[in-house]
């Protein structure tokens, strides 16, 4: 199982040393030129558009302010984010704990292996009808679906990362007489850290997708609900505002993730930058 990463994740740059803020700004700018160019193109090319499906970007942005701030559609974003957060945290926790258990208990691993890969390849949205049947239509169902999807990338990467730790490091732990729990927290978790982070990141992407999908089926709130509802009312401009808000939230969450990852795995990125192990 290789690392699960997604193309939509912003690439991370090495943190600049103090004293060279100019270089840092330069790096941020080089990372931004393409999105900015595309936005400018969109703005210019759509400026005189009369097509009802592609309204001018300037109109969409104005409408976004109206809909989401003035008319109170932000409540949809709040309910989406709350479900995402709860579902993601639950799924990620189950993934890390489950992955650790599978790593530790070989018997469980061999027994559970086929089942896990079966669940992993099963498209989570296919479970939506079942989830509705079990949890009814409401936030609980949304949270359950998001958790379910978020479990697998984290679980598989956790297991894989833990199995990939150098055996000499385990010999060392025994020689230093670290207890099982101590070596779990000082060796196993940090050692698998980079790969667990890759899994968590993939889980986040899956979680966002499932958040939108679950809101598009038999829901009464959320960004996905807003987008689908607008389209059903032929309010195309309004629909576009939902997509823009979604894109913004997705980007922000990814950047937030990368920021936290960089802090927690500072040793990893710095040692790699030095060409170390």
């Amino acid at each position, binding site marked *: 199982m290789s690392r699960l990463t997604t193309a939509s994740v912003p690439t991370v740059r090495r943190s600049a040393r103090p004293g060279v803020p100019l270089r840092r700004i330069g790096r941020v700018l080089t990372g931004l030129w393409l999105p900015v160019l595309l936005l400018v193109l969109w703005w210019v090319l759509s400026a005189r558009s009369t097509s009802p499906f592609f309204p001018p970007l300037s109109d969409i942005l104005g409408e976004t302010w109206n809909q989401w701030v003035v008319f109170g559609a932000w409540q949809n974003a709040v309910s989406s984010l709350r479900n995402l957060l709860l579902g993601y945290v639950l799924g990620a926790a189950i993934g890390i704990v489950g992955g650790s258990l599978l790593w530790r208990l070989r018997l469980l691993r061999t027994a559970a292996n086929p089942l896990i890969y079966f669940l992993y390849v099963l498209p989570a949205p296919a479970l939506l009808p079942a989830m509705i049947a079990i949890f009814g239509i409401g936030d609980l169902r949304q949270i359950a679906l998001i958790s379910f999807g978020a479990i697998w990338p984290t679980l598989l990467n956790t297991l894989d990362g833990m199995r990939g730790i150098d055996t000499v*490091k385990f010999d*060392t732990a025994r020689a*230093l007489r670290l*207890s099982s729990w101590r070596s779990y927290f000082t060796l196993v978790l940090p050692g698998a850290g980079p790969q667990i982070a890759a899994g968590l990141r993939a889980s986040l992407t899956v979680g966002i997708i499932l958040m939108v999908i679950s809101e598009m089926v038999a829901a009464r709130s959320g960004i996905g609900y807003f987008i689908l509802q607008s389209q059903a009312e032929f309010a195309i401009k309004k629909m576009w505002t939902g997509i823009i808000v979604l894109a913004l939230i997705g980007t922000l969450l990814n950047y937030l993730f990368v920021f936290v990852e960089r802090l927690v795995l500072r040793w990893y990125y710095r040692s790699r930058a030095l060409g170390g*192990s």
Partner: protein
Amino acid sequence: MSIPVTTQTVLAVEDLRKIYNEGTDAANMAIDSVSFSVEKGEFVCIVGPSGAGKTTLLRCISGLAAPSSGSVTFEGKRLTDVPAQLGLVFQDYSRSLYPWYTNGRNVALPLAARGVPKGERAARVAEVLGNVGLGHVEKKYPWELSGGMQQRVAIARALSYRPELLLMDEPFASVDAQTRFDLEDLILKVRTELGITVVLVTHDIDEAIYLSDRIVVLSKNPSVVKEVVPVSLGESRDQVETRSSPEFLELRNHLLSLVMPHA
């Protein structure tokens, strides 16, 4: 000779045999039969050609691996796990140090595991890093140091809990010659200062003679003990003088003829 005469056996290896994958088609005898003992305060080197089973032997006498037959006794008790009073330095420092912790934290790990209180831990870490001449790297990470310095951190970590016996597996194999001499002298110094017993595995005959009180010579795989050679070069040793003394050269010839019977 001011080495204490109260001889007391720290480590006794009797008729040790190790067969990997025993009972399968892939069975591989790494060690046939090895017996030797180490007295308190002694410095014993184990030399043998590459692939002789040196690492295997060290894993067995440290309690990391179980022998197929024979026994290992540490301070009168038969080994079942790694004893608390044993320090271990591995061949490859980059694989045995934990890169996610600073050097100070790496050295503190075995102390925390032994329940040493936090304040005392910090003092001991500083002290033992000072012993190996690395007082200034506590807050740095292992991968920020040179290879020789990393191995010194690994040695400091093994010394931090004041073991009775220090076992080292080719600890200086992957550093340059100059650093190697420095580390050899460092380990001799530390050994006298702390009064510990050392067993060091190497494939370098000169290194073995320079460091040892006694040398256990292994045959090639599957290994048996060819001979145990006593080294009477006295207590103080010097890289230039000792290595050019007639006793040293004589021992060197003898050992060479042992490991290379056709030379």
